[in-house]
């Protein structure tokens, strides 16, 4: 038993931390996240120059990581800097492609940053249910509507799910294909998303079992988001402690008011529980069936609950300053809350976890 990270994972986390310190001041992040494409192509290039995405894939795919702890430690590091660039999509799409024999070169292009891809799976009516898909295939042509597709503009490829008869399959489509329309908009936490309308769009079917690949990828997505949230909470914790140490009211530092002290103590304690939840999910990622599903739901539910608590308490403990665009806290808090709106919120995962009770 050893809860220290391996040397390799520490190294990659340090790389990210240095990148944040050097190239990722919060002002630039906010500007990029609210720009036309929702992120910085320069930083996207730097992230790939540094080889960061290789940590998300195993040696089989030329990576040097790919297991639960690799994913979690990288995304925790990304969260600390509120990195907006779409590494989550690289992870999910890359994981799906890793099941394919025919498309290994695309996977390599994604990891190296030569190509960028979008992941178009959930739909207007889906809610958080991955199985609730109406987009369908006829004669190798896809029709339907995909919603909240992250960073869909300017990609080289779109990975799309669709129902062929009864079975869910996965396809690649060209973003410039006929019949495809992208309605792009901003998201609350910075970045962009889009509704993608597909009207008999030509598609290449992937040589994989769609449900198996999706289940693998979405599980990794849940873990990555949770770890990102943990990193965000770490940073919020630092901001809040620092604020309580330095800001004075009534002639005393805020941190000397016992009512606030006790609330901070609860925040700190809940963050440690969230950290444990991420560790549990990292360890269970390689398991299968109920064990994996339960650990992932336990983790995402914990993140949802603790995330909301930490975001709200940190703003309240800061007072007005915590609500300004100028100060970094709000941007971290927004992303933290929005993570509960991806891949199942607290209520969804508590119901899923308890569905295993018999």
């Amino acid at each position, binding site marked *: 038993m050893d809860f220290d990270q391996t040397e390799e994972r520490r190294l990659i986390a340090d790389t990210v931390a240095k990148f944040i310190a050097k190239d990722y001041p919060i002002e630039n992040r906010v500007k990029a996240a609210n720009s036309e494409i929702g992120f910085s192509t320069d930083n996207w290039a730097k992230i790939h120059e540094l080889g960061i995405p290789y940590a998300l894939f195993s040696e089989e795919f030329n990576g040097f990581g790919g297991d639960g702890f690799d994913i979690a430690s990288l995304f925790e590091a990304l969260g600390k800097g509120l990195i907006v660039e779409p590494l989550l999509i690289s992870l999910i799409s890359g994981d799906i492609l890793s099941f394919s024999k025919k498309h290994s070169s695309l996977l390599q292009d994604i990891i190296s940053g030569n190509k960028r891809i979008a992941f178009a799976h959930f739909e207007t*009516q889906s809610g958080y249910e991955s199985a609730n898909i109406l987009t369908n295939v006829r004669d190798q042509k896809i029709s339907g509507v995909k919603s909240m597709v992250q960073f869909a503009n300017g990609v080289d490829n779109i990975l799309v799910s669709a129902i062929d008869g009864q079975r869910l399959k996965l396809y690649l489509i060209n973003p410039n294909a006929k019949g495809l329309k992208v309605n792009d908009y901003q998201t609350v936490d910075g970045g962009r998303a889009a509704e993608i309308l597909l009207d008999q769009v030509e598609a290449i079917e992937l040589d994989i079992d769609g449900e198996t690949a999706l289940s693998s990828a979405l599980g990794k997505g849940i873990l990555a988001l949770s770890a990102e949230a943990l990193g965000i909470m770490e940073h919020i914790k630092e901001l809040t402690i620092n604020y309580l140490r330095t800001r004075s009211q009534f002639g005393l530092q805020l941190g000397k008011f016992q009512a606030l002290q006790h609330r901070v103590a609860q925040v700190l304690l809940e963050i440690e529980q969230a950290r444990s939840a991420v560790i549990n999910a990292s360890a269970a990622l390689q398991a299968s069936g109920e064990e994996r599903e339960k650990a992932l739901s336990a983790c995402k539910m914990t993140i949802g609950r603790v995330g909301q608590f930490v975001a709200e308490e940190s703003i309240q403990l800061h007072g*007005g300053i915590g609500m*300004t665009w100028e100060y970094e806290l709000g941007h971290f808090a927004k992303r933290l809350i929005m993570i509960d709106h*991806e891949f199942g919120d607290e209520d969804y995962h508590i119901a899923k976890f308890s569905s295993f009770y018999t």
Partner: protein
Amino acid sequence: MDVNFTREQEKFRLEVREFLTSAIPPKLADKIENNKPLLKEDMQNWHDILNKKGWLASSWPKEYNGTGWGVVEQFIFEDELAAANAPRTVPFGLRMLAPVLMKFGTKDQCNYWLPRILDGSDWWCQGYSEPGSGSDLASLKTSAVKCGDQYLVNGQKTWTTLAQHANMIFNLVRTSNEGKPQQGISFLMIDMNSPGIEVRPIKTIDGGHEVNEVWFSDVRVPAENLIGEENKGWTYAKYLLSHERNNIATVGISKKKLEKLKVIAKNEFRNGLPLIKDPLFAARLARLEISLLNMETTNLRVLSESEKGGDPGAESSMLKILGSEICQELDHLQRRAAGRFGRISRPEALEEGFNGEDIGPFFAHTASSTYFNNRKVSIYGGSNEIQKNIITKMIIGL
């Protein structure tokens, strides 16, 4: 014990309701219904409509062309405004400065300034908070030095709501550094067009612009703009804070929000069930509705006491806490109901005349921004922490 409104009050409610049905411009009602931002003209327009009807100054005595309504009538009026998707009136002149003027101003001041509030000549804003003085308001530093028949004002105010629209500001200023910090504060009315004033917008996390910094450098203010006595401003400020407590819990607005939330929860689906039938969401909704039902009665109890001349005391602080928590929980559940679409941010879709594509349910466009914006309600007007201090001070008495 009689929990019912009187027949006269019920008749009054119907009268208000009938008036509002025809009085609210549909475009304005649509903005309120859909959480779209109001323009300055929208607010002015509504101000004028109510003024024309004679219902603008709903908390003023008849003597100053107010309605002369009792606290229960005012409560009913607010209830109906919310139910009809009418905006609340801007409070700074009507409900904050006016009572201070009536209580501590001279006859001349009242006769000059009060009519200008009604006819819209002045749009007031409030200069209380400063960068170093949040919860600890009495530590404020903006100074006013008397030079002949003028004050020379220097310093900075912050969190000044809608200062971008205002032409007047009532300001707490420091006129003395002797004694306790509370003892050297004065209450000054300042023309926003005076040389030396600069308004700088503060953008909030939801991307909106409601609040501002107001900077004063060598701003000259006529001494006649002082209200009451020099160095007694703290008393007036506290009077202002404790005066407009009747609708502090914003029951009417929360009832309307709940109604909208229920409609949303019937239309949104999770796993093939309407959200309102999802056991966990329904339980959250029921808990919230029950809290609100309880709070409405708590509020009416305070009003009833107040009608008899009682002093609400700690109950006002309880209502402030409850009201803000219920408002925030309503916003939280609306955000939760938006599900994956809770991340949409399309300010352009909220503009007048927008005719782009529909994306997801429309309420989702403002669900998260409203949630974040309303984190303020437990911070402003005396944070909930300050309210808890007040409650224990009053009840434990230590």
